[in-house]
């Protein structure tokens, strides 16, 4: 029962990724695409944690930490390029 609900939750989160990706395809400006990328990374972090518990290996959580930190710096780099900062 509980496993079924967890799987349904993961599939709903997957649908969230797909919706953000549609914005990345049609987004008229670059800022729209960057926002969509931001949304996709955060939903992917949740999905990584789900995978860690699904395959019963808590060590995978390290991947989520690194993923979050690096994607934050990537978004900041895109934003600073957009405002002609760096």
């Amino acid at each position, binding site marked *: 029962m509980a496993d079924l609900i967890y799987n349904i939750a993961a599939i709903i989160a997957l649908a969230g990724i797909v919706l953000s990706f549609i914005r990345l395809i049609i987004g008229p400006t670059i800022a729209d695409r960057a926002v969509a990328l931001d949304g996709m990374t955060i939903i992917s972090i949740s999905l990584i944690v789900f995978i860690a518990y699904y*395959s*019963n*290996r808590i*060590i*995978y959580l390290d991947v989520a930490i690194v993923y979050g930190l690096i994607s934050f710096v990537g978004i900041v780099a895109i934003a600073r390029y957009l405002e002609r900062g760096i």
Partner: protein
Amino acid sequence: MIFSLILGFLLLIIGLYGMLTQKNLIKIVIGFSIVDTGTHIIIVSIGYLSGKTAPILDSTVDLANAAKQVVDPIPSALVLTAIVIGLAVTALMLSFVIKLYQKNKSLSIDDYQELKW
């Protein structure tokens, strides 16, 4: 996992198509990085054994017959090396792009014909 194998091949072909048809130097480097990713996915999915877990032997793995429970560690190690080398190659290619642009003020590959015969 057959799906990831197919995915790797598709990415490889799309990347090659981009490298061969695009004129922009930066687009060619992007195509190269897509080929890189595709190749890595192929190698990792060849090493995957269905129903087995990652080769990190902590308390969730039975140590007595550990070799029967884990996937192949050698493709992981190879791909790890290949990703780092890929970064080095990409950095070198991009600095060549910058150097070429500073020399000729153009990004189109049609403007660089010194080595054409």
